[in-house]
């Protein structure tokens, strides 16, 4: 049972410019009686998300729509537990995996095989888990003998295939993604597509940020439209896409 509850969750980013961030300024501020800090410690704050209230339950396939800067990525990070809300509450129960950047943790100097372990452990798998799935991952990536070569010798396509093959072996309860993962040439794309579907099938809650109407209509059963950090619309895909894309 996975479930996500947001209650008036806000995310405020404090912006410390180079001088405000230094200890010197802090000390001088104290020394001068904090006069400079008239408006709430004199800090600039960017409100990225404001008063989000919603709940997600098993079976929800949520698409996030919104223009650049609407707060989609911040919301994804909030959902994955990287950020804690600066006001309000966000309770997330269930094992979360975030596939925002699938290449994170890949070391170009290490071999493909070593990288499978590194990436896998980073995603929360145990060594024995990975050892068990190793052959399958190598076979899926179609890298053949290259698996024992340093990753820096790979083409960018091969690099992505490796990252994709490892990253999609996890089976989390809650899956967070920024755009649909699609890698490789025509032949590989097909396999990747099938594997992605399998992964999505196995998770209880999917949250995916996207700019694609087709993707949202095909994959999601609920769409949240964010604008300026607030929820503008939260409904079924047809209604929201019609309003968002305008036709």
């Amino acid at each position: 049972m996975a479930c996500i509850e947001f209650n008036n969750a806000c995310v405020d980013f404090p912006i410390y410019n180079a001088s405000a961030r230094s200890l010197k300024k802090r000390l001088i501020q104290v020394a001068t009686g904090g006069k400079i800090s008239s408006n709430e410690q004199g800090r600039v704050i960017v409100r990225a998300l404001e008063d989000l209230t919603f709940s997600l339950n098993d079976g929800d396939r949520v698409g996030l729509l919104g223009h650049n800067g609407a707060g989609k990525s911040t919301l994804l990070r909030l959902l994955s537990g990287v950020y804690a809300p600066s006001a309000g509450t966000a309770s997330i129960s269930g094992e979360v995996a975030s596939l925002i950047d699938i290449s994170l943790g890949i070391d170009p100097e290490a071999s493909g095989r070593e990288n499978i372990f590194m990436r896998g452990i980073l995603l929360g798998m145990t060594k024995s888990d990975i050892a068990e799935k190793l052959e399958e991952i190598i076979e899926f990536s179609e890298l053949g003998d290259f698996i024992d070569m340093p990753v820096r010798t790979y083409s960018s396509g091969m690099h992505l295939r490796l990252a994709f093959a490892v990253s999609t072996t996890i089976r989390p309860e809650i899956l967070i993604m920024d755009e649909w993962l699609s890698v490789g040439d025509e032949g590989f794309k097909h396999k990747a597509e099938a594997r992605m579907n399998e992964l999505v099938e196995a998770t209880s809650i999917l949250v995916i940020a996207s700019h694609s109407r087709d993707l949202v209509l095909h994959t999601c059963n609920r769409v949240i439209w964010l604008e300026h950090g607030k929820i503008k619309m939260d409904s079924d895909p047809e209604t929201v896409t019609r309003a968002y894309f305008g036709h």
Partner: protein
Amino acid sequence: MLNNSITAAMADIATAVKRYSLVGMLGWQDVRQRYRRSAVGPFWLTISMGVMIGTIGLVFGQIFNSPMKEFLPFLAAGMILWSFISTCVLEGCSSLIAAESIIKQLPIPLFVHILRTIWRNTLILAHNIVIFPLVLLAVQKPLGLEALWSIPGFALLVLNLAWISLILSLLCARYRDLPQIIASVLQIAFYLTPIMWLPSLLPGRAGTYLLDLNPIYHLLQIVRAPLLGQDVSTVSWCVAGGMALFGWCIAIIIYGLYKRRIAYWL
């Protein structure tokens, strides 16, 4: 409120310790990454450390007119341990800043990054320590069984370094000038602590200030003294143990209060 944050901090630290395979892998990767495609690898550090100990040993041994049999092992053990302590603290400062990309992507307990720094430096220490038996061999000083006392000493040292790194990494993520300050403080501490000079050379009064009141001296002493075949004084054990206990309490409170903010500061 405070109770909640203490529980959160403890939970984070406990999960981090449980994910030791992640810590181990990241630490190894750091060491390997630095020396990949180099034939001698991490032993480059050992070589430069060895050369430094040799040079300082010859020069200061002459200046202080100390017998080599006593001075050289003392200097070697001191320099090797000091380099471990100072890099742990210094790299501990930037351990969260350096892990920004991971912190902003994956919900991994943040203490993992502190442990990673300590583990990486422990691996480097393991390379450097090779020098010590060579020095003992060179001056023909035997190594007794009492040297084993340095193992619990080392564990206590690491326990202390962990809380220091935890607090510093948090403060440094927020105040970015702090690493520079820490670097200068460490430089001063190096000269104030008996590493290059023998404590026996100090005149009486100065000794109380530079030895008994210097916590770094006690931390160093719980590992170094057994290696040199000396007894660790009860004072040193007590200071190191007390520091660990007191420091961890403070660290857990601070960590619990500010853990949620760290991702915002990066």
